[in-house]
C-alpha cells in the first residue's frame, strides 16, 4: 500500500502546476464573465447573462466567424508552405541542414512587433515592395499594400513558418526511407511517391500542426492591428478593445469564454475526425 502513495504524489505535481497557471485564471475569467458591467467604474459582483447575450448580436457573431476563417486559412497556408520546404531541407547535406535550422531558430527569436514593423515597411508605398515594383516598371502607380487581408496573412505565415518547420524536422529527418525507395524502384513517379507514400505517412503530423497553428493564430493580436484593416480584426483585438480599452472586463471575459468553447469544439472535432479516418484506412 505504502509504495503506491509516491506515484500518486508525483501525479499531484502536474495537477498543481495546471491549477496554478491555467485552471485558476480560467476559473476567475469564467466568474468575471457573469459579473455586471458598471459603465462608469469597473464591474459589480453579480450573476447576469447580459455579457453572453451580447455575443449573439450580429456584430460579434461576424467577428468570430471572421477570426475562425483567418486563423484556419493562415494555418493551412503555413503548413502547405512549411511541409514541402522541410521535405527539401532534410535531403540536403548536413551543413546546409544546419544552416536552415539555425536560420529558422533565429526567426523564432523575433518578436511579433518586430516582424509586424518589418512587413509594414516592406509593404509601404514609399520604401518597400510597391516602390521597387514601380521602379522596375511592373506597377505604374504603386500603392501601399497594407493594411489588407493579404498583408495580415503574410504576417501570420512569417510568425508560424519556423514553428511548423521545426515541428516537422525530427520526424522527417528520421523517417524510414525504404518505403519510398521501394515505390521508386517499382517505377512510381516521384510526384506520386510524394502524394501516395509521404503525405499519408505524415497526415497525423500535418493535422496536428494545422490545429496548433489554428489555435495560435486565433490568439494573435499584433498582426491584425498592424497589418490588417478593421474588417480583418479578429476576436482577440475586439476582446482587448473591450477589456482594456473600454474597461469592460465582464464582456471581455464572456467573449473569451465563448472563443475558448469554439476552439475546444473545433479541436475535438478535428482530432476525432482524423482518428476515425486513420482507423478506417
Amino acid at each position, binding site marked *: 500500500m505504502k509504495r503506491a502513495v509516491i506515484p500518486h504524489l508525483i501525479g499531484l505535481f502536474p495537477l498543481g502546476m495546471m491549477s496554478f497557471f491555467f485552471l485558476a485564471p480560467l476559473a476567475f475569467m469564467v466568474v468575471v464573465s457573469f459579473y455586471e458591467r*458598471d459603465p*462608469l*467604474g*469597473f464591474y459589480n459582483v453579480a450573476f447576469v447573462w447580459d455579457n453572453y447575450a451580447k455575443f449573439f448580436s450580429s*456584430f460579434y457573431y461576424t467577428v468570430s466567424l471572421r477570426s475562425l476563417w483567418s486563423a484556419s486559412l493562415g494555418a493551412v497556408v503555413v503548413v502547405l508552405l512549411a511541409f514541402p520546404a522541410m521535405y527539401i531541407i532534410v535531403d540536403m547535406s548536413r551543413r546546409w541542414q544546419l544552416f536552415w535550422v539555425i536560420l529558422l531558430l533565429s526567426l523564432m527569436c523575433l518578436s511579433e512587433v518586430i516582424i509586424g514593423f518589418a512587413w509594414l515597411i516592406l509593404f*509601404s*508605398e514609399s520604401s518597400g515592395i510597391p516602390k521597387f515594383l514601380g521602379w522596375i516598371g511592373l506597377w505604374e502607380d504603386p500603392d501601399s499594400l497594407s493594411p489588407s487581408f493579404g498583408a495580415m496573412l503574410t504576417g501570420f505565415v512569417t510568425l508560424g513558418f519556423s514553428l511548423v518547420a521545426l515541428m516537422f524536422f525530427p520526424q522527417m529527418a528520421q523517417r524510414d526511407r525504404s518505403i519510398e525507395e521501394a515505390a521508386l524502384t517499382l517505377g512510381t513517379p516521384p510526384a506520386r511517391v510524394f502524394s501516395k507514400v509521404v503525405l499519408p505517412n505524415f497526415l497525423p503530423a500535418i493535422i496536428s500542426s494545422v490545429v496548433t497553428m489554428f489555435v495560435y493564430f486565433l490568439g494573435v493580436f499584433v498582426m491584425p492591428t498592424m497589418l490588417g484593416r478593421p474588417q480583418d480584426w479578429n476576436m482577440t483585438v475586439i476582446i482587448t478593445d473591450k477589456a482594456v480599452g473600454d474597461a469592460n472586463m465582464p464582456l471581455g471575459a464572456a467573449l473569451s469564454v465563448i472563443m475558448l468553447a469554439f476552439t475546444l469544439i473545433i479541436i475535438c472535432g478535428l482530432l476525432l475526425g482524423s482518428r476515425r479516418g486513420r482507423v478506417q484506412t
Partner: protein
Amino acid sequence: MKLRKSNIVAAGFLTVSGLAVAAEEITVSAWGGFFEETLKAEIYPAFTDETGITVRSIAQPADQAWMTQLTNAARAKTAPSDLSLVADEVFLRGQSIGLWAKLDGSEIPNTATLLDGFTKIDDDDTLRAVGALSWYTTLVTNSEAIPDAPETWADLWTRDWDGKLGLTSNANSGLMEATALTFFGGYEVMETREGLEQVIAKIAELKPKVQLWYRDEGQFQQNLEAGELTGGLYYHDVTMLSAANGLPVVSTFPKEGGILGDAYWIVPRDSENVEAAQKFINYMIRPDVQAQLARKLGVAPVAQRETMDLTDEEFSAVSSVDTPIRPQTHIHLREGDWLSDKYLEMISQ
C-alpha cells in the same frame, strides 16, 4: 505625509544649497511619448530647482487603458503615481467611483488665474482636479499630396483624398461632434440614439476614403509625414512641431472650429504625497509656466490670456479665438458601451 529619506549625495547637495527641507520625491505620469519626454526635459527641472521636490516622470498609456490601471491599483489600495494628467472623460469616470484624492484649494492659490471651469469641485464642495492644459485636434494634411489646405470639415467628404485618409478607430476623437456640427446643425442630434446612428452613418460614407483607422498615434504621424497618408484627424500641437522641423505637414483649423479637449491634474486616492502634489499643481498652472507649456509643447494654455506673456503670434500658434468644437463627454459617458460597439461595427464592416 511620508517624507522620503534622502540619500547621501542628495543630502550633501541640500546642505550645500542651504535648503532645510528633506528631499521629497513625487511620481508624475503623463501620456507616453513626446508629451512625457518634453515635460520631463523642459518643465519639471525648473520645478525641482524651485521647490527641492524631485519629480520621477513616468509614461502612462492611452486614457481607457490608464483608467483600468488606476481602478485596479485603487482596488489594491496603491497609487501608480502621485499625479496624473487625465482627459475630461477619465476624470468624470474616476470621480464617480471615488478614485481621486481630496485637494485643498487654499494650497493651490494660482487657480485664481485659470480660465473658468478648470477647477473641478464635486457635490461635497471638495476640489478634485485642476486644469492642466488643453489641446486641439484639427484637420491635418500632407502638403506635398494636398497643396490646398482644407477649409471645412466637409472637405473630408467632398475632396479627393486618393483613398489615403487616416482617422481614429474610437468614437470619442471628436469626429462625431465635428460631423454633427457640420451636417446636422449642432450637437442636439447626438442626444438620441437615432441621431447618433445618423451621425455614424454619415461617417461611414468616409470609409472608401480611409486607408488607416488608427489606434496608435505614432503610426498615423509616421505615415502622414512619409506621404503614405494624405490627411486626417490629428493633434494640432504635434503637427505644428513636425512642421517646424521641416516635415511637409500642415494643421488647419476648419471654419467650424478645431476640436478642443481638456486635461486635468488629478491625485490618485491612495497617493501619500498629496501636499507635494498640490505644490506641483500650483506650479504647473502658474501663468509663466502655462506660457512655457504653450511654447515647448504647443498646447493651448488654461490660464487667462492676459496673465501670460505670450505674444499674439505665439498664442495663435497654439490656440484659436474661434468657438471650438467640444467633445460631448456626457453623451460618451451615458452611451459609452452602445456607442463604442456601434462605431466599431461601422468601421469593421
